[in-house]
């Protein structure tokens, strides 16, 4: 796999083309329900071996997007391609071999009544891969890879610490040797010292196995640390996308600026920044007109409420904002 990376032409591991997901939120049994555009036209391209950080406030559609990438939700329109193949043509199992999730909370994502070895080997058994000896061998192998002592194989999740549980979740995701791993808030339920261990583990595994990650997180310090490129989501749309360095050095969209300003780094004396965002995240059923960010924007222009901005490339950043037209 590393040979592929070394080639000039980068391989696109994952691609979405104008993906949309619309839910109908009912107000009663007789009304038709109102449309909620959870994901509203997202086009992304993730190169093999890279890490895409997906940031945004809760309710912006990042988890819905992740579910579609995992094949757990079908897009209303648009297309998702994994290594060039459209996902629509896959069945669920085939998708699961290529894209695997790591969830946020290792306390609720592991079955408390199954032993660790049984949790980790479940994907193999579902896909009918290998006999018992083979399964046992692969479980032992992956446990060693993620740094779980072998004696834990017959333990239950309740006997493990938070960090160990998250290692189990990582092991379960990697046992199928997927190409893409979707990490939805992989460390936000963990203590800082454990968070560091898991981040280091994810980094090591990526270089070792040539994995591609999509890391969804509201912790921008984590995203800056682990991601190679970042996409900022607001109300179902990607409003800015750039490589990590550019985005953190020179944010373009006023929303990105506000997000970055609200990161509290451990530097005493700086106080709490005033992002001037206003508290209200708009109701996604009834989004604001024009640019959906305009009611909270500090740099709002006259045309923002009237007209939705188009995606532009400014320097090396893709940004959707009238300021750059």
């Amino acid at each position, binding site marked *: 796999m590393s040979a592929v990376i070394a080639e000039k032409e980068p391989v696109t591991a994952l691609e979405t083309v104008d993906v949309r997901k619309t839910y109908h939120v009912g107000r009663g049994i007789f009304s038709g329900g109102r449309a909620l555009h959870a994901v509203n036209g997202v086009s992304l391209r993730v190169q093999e071996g890279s890490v895409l950080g997906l940031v945004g406030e*809760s309710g912006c559609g990042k988890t819905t997007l992740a579910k579609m990438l995992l094949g757990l939700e079908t897009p209303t329109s648009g297309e998702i391609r994994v290594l060039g193949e459209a996902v629509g043509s896959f069945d669920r199992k085939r998708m699961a071999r290529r894209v695997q999730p790591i969830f946020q909370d290792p306390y609720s994502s592991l079955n408390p009544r199954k032993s660790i070895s049984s949790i980790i080997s479940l994907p193999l058994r579902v896909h009918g891969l290998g006999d018992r000896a083979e399964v046992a061998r692969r479980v032992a192998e992956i446990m060693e890879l993620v740094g779980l002592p072998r004696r834990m194989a017959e333990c239950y999740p309740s006997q493990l610490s938070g960090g160990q549980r998250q290692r189990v979740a990582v092991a379960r995701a990697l046992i199928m040797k997927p190409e893409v791993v979707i990490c939805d808030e992989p460390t936000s339920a963990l203590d800082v010292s454990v968070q560091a261990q898991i981040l280091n583990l994810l980094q090591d595994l990526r270089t070792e196995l040539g994995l591609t990650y999509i890391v969804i997180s509201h912790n921008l310090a984590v995203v800056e640390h682990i991601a190679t490129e970042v996409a900022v989501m607001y109300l179902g749309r990607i409003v800015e996308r750039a490589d990590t360095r550019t985005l953190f050095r020179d944010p373009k969209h006023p929303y990105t600026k506000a997000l970055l300003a609200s990161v509290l780094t451990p530097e005493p004396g700086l106080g709490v920044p005033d992002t001037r965002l206003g508290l209200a995240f708009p109701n996604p059923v009834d989004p604001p007109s024009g640019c959906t960010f305009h009611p909270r924007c500090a740099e709002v222009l006259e045309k923002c409420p009237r007209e939705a901005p188009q995606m532009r490339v400014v320097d090396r950043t893709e940004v959707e904002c009238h300021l750059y037209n």
Partner: protein
Amino acid sequence: MSILTVENLSVDIPLAGGVLHPVRDISFSVEAGKTLAIVGESGCGKSLTSLAIMELLPTAATRSATRLDFAGQSLLSLSERRMSDIRGDRMSMIFQDPMTSLNPAYPIGDQLEESLLRHRKVTRREARDRAVYLLEKVGITAAESRLGQYPHQLSGGLRQRVMIAMGLMCGPELIIADEPTTALDVTIQAQILLLLADLQKEFGMALILITHDLGVVARVADRVAVMYAGQIVETGTAEQVFREPTHPYTRGLLECIPIPGKTAPGSPLGSIPGIVPSLIGELHGCSFRDRCELAHEACAVPEIIPMRELDARRGYRCVLDPRSMAGEIAEAGLQ
């Protein structure tokens, strides 16, 4: 003037396997209008400390202290009846998880009004007005119409703000906030912290902020107490603790977090190996010695390592001299 003074506070919980000591001999004080942050990882005893002050410990747990003074009055010998007059009125708490600490069966309006109706001679109308005023203060739009809503109808951020408003209903002198912003988005977190700071200035409240988020601590705390395994291992002003951490645990914690602009992206982060020791039964020596790269024989003495003072208001619990520690760290790094 200190509003709350705690000396040698301990909490013991008898379990089948022996007595658990989740909080061990904690001493601190909070001044009116100031913020003390108690920082530590899960299981270090920070939440139980706050419950012990409020006298909301589980029934099996026992509390002991040599001193527990709130606004010049000792809380140690207070009857439950007198304590419940103080709780929610002069001293209130913002709990960590708004999903489980709000009652799902009552509208939030009723829950907000409850503490004011309990402590003050006010009419329903006045209580309702106060609730609306505070909901607007914490940034909830259309507050009036929200009063009839149930907790499940609100988002996590809104519920957390309801919790904060609830803590402020009686205008308390001391607020204990247990991870008040952990479940929130960064943008909302910044605003809630800003709001708490404003309210603190406006009402002159003292705030005990319990959190594991070092970023939050650095930005809002006046004083910091770092807890590990039920003990305070380091205290000082935020400036002191973050600029010159003394205890190896504090140093370790600070190395664990990536800081945009300072930590090189993708570089391995520092981590603290091992896990928190069991706090059941007799404990001795330094609790951090199994995970500390500077540990030596003196750390395993039969006594508990005492808190030492660096200067009048700066303490640490380590056998090493902070001045020589830098040299030892360099040495340990080389090995």
